[in-house]
């Protein structure tokens, strides 16, 4: 490297970055350091990955079960969806959702409100935002509710194992989750109002919405593309998991008098999950790594902000690429670790 005139070092991380980023979860401006720009990119990558994982799981489970539906129409639609979306390269799908779908969206001044004050425009998706007073108290109450639910579940388990009694755990949990935070509104002065997006004119034909929450179209199309693509694989995992449970199990469960819901919840799903989790983990990892395609459509993720702009401005290719690679490695290992832990928890314990 010395012969090529490249000097190596990580000192640049504390230097001023002097470029702005479109969209950030934390306070950031160009006067902050490259290290903070890294954090901005990392958080944006995490955001799109987590949203993608949530949506692809929901959609994947629905489609996976739909593929086994006795209804011909549902079954075939699900099959077509899977075959269509998993066989088109992801980058093309991202381009489609960004460029093709974006072009079809109206300009802010021409957008019709959906459900009152939601606006889907070419410059982003605008929704009303909530303005909280004493938000921290509210958050503590939610945490307290979750802790209470854990205790209720433990108690219910004890009751079931020692006395054979069933209590409606789900209903109790939901009640706690609602009542406790709700109480804070009356007792500790928590209140919430909302702010609506308002159209603002910038120039004769150029408008934006101000106020409320704005979701950039880049994030929107990336999450849609990643979720639709990965959901096909999740759907196949789910189908494989359910089909992997022998028919005898279902019949045996029915013969001891369990109803359909109980069969699915107590017999089929716990076993199917063992088959579903390991391949699903792979898909979550893929989704996280695929989120780096964001750079193609200007979503400021780790690759675009750090391995893109920051790399260019500093010229520290080896340092920045190594940090970025390590970051993705760490992210992937963390996801695997989490999923392995979950997998171990639901695995059959041989007694």
């Amino acid at each position: 490297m010395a012969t090529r005139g490249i000097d190596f070092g990580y000192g640049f991380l504390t230097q001023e970055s002097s470029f702005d980023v479109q969209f950030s979860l934390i306070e950031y401006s160009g006067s902050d350091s490259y290290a903070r720009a890294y954090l901005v990119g990392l958080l944006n990558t995490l955001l799109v990955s987590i949203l993608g994982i949530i949506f692809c799981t929901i959609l994947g489970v629905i489609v996976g079960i739909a593929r086994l539906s006795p209804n011909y129409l549902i079954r075939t639609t699900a099959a077509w969806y899977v075959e269509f979306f998993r066989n088109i390269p992801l980058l093309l799908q991202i381009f489609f959702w960004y460029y093709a779908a974006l072009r079809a969206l109206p300009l802010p001044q021409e957008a019709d409100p959906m459900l009152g004050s939601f606006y889907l425009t070419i410059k982003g998706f605008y929704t009303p935002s909530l303005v909280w007073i004493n938000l921290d108290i509210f958050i503590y109450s939610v945490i307290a509710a979750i802790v209470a639910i854990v205790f209720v579940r433990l108690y219910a388990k004890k009751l079931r194992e020692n006395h054979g009694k069933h209590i409606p755990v789900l209903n109790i949990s939901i009640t706690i989750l609602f009542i406790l935070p709700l109480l804070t509104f009356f007792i500790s002065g928590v209140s919430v109002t909302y702010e609506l997006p308002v159209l603002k004119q910038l120039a004769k034909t150029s408008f934006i919405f101000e106020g409320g929450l704005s979701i950039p179209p880049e994030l929107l199309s990336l999450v849609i593309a990643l979720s639709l693509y990965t959901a096909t694989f999740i759907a196949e995992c789910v189908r494989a998991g359910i089909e992997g449970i022998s028919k005898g199990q279902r019949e045996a469960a029915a013969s001891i008098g369990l109803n359909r819901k109980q069969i699915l919840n107590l017999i089929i799903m716990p076993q199917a999950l063992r088959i579903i989790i390991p391949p699903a983990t792979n898909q979550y990892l893929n989704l996280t790594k695929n989120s780096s395609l964001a750079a193609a459509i200007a979503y400021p993720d780790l690759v675009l902000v750090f391995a893109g702009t920051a790399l260019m401005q500093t010229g520290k290719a080896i340092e920045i690429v190594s940090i970025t690679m390590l970051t993705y490695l760490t992210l992937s290992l963390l996801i695997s670790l989490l999923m392995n832990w979950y997998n171990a928890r639901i695995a059959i314990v041989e007694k």
Partner: protein
Amino acid sequence: MFKNIKKILSLLAVASLVFVYSCDQMAGKKNQKKGASKTVDATKKSGFVKCGVSQGLPGFSNADASGNWTGVDVDICRAVAAAVLGDADKVKYTPLSAKERFTALTSGEIDVLSRNTTWTLSRDADIGLTFVGVNFYDGQGFMVRKNSGINTVDDFQNGISACTNIGTTTELNMRDFFNSRNISYEPVAFEKADEVVAAYDAGRCDTYTTDKSGLAAQRTKMSNPDEHMVLPETISKEPLGPVVRQGDSVWEDIVRWSLNVMIEAEEYGIDSQNADMMKSSDNPAIKRLVGSEGELGAAFGLDNEWSLRIIKQVGNYGESYKRNIADTGILPDRGPNELWTKGGILYVPPAR
């Protein structure tokens, strides 16, 4: 057992390769003397100049349907090939994104970067690069829709969204500009120029900002070029020029003077048509440029006709500008890119 033998054998093979390679390296260092250039040797050996260009910027470096590259940046590569290899067509072009370009150069994938690249202090000093000159004086500007009601940069208001490329000085200038005017803006930065154009064209952004020459060139790619206009203000200095790696001063000189010769030839009125006749000129400066007097090429180990080949095969700077930028309607007016003798700022050291 056999597996182990295989392993040992392959290890030995790798080790010997490394040994041979390092010997080769050391030998190479010993042989290096004054006037010798690794890059020139490698170029002569491979038979072509490895040149990094843009992924398609009309007027600067752009490939047509059959893969022929044209543009003022491309002409620098061709000039170097004409000087070193004797044939301007012996160039291997590598299209690079703004993000890839410097890494490609420092890693040795290309030997000259001629890709509308702005000369700045940090790039020159920091990252193992050397800028050899300026082949286009440019400045950053803004493009807007004609019907937007924005007629100058003073019409920009808080909340404006601006599409641009990542990894360019544009991103930094844009921040300086908006910050100094206290305007909040939404930067939407893409990796490729085509993606920026597509997004701006779709209406994602209110304005598209990059070098003015780039705006003029990209406007031709819009679905309806007449709907867009470039604002009159220029917000930065963007001297664009070819770049080489640090550490090979002979190669650096060859590229620098290939550019300078083109500009100097225009100054003395030598072009691709009359170059041969100029050999018998009365003016010694002209005779030196076409190689009929002096030993200009010897300084960097080239024959005496190197500059003549550049002028004959590529043309002088004026011809290159006319062919690529003026006649294509991108920027018919040469503006600052006119010779200093004609009111511009093109001024190169004398070739003597």
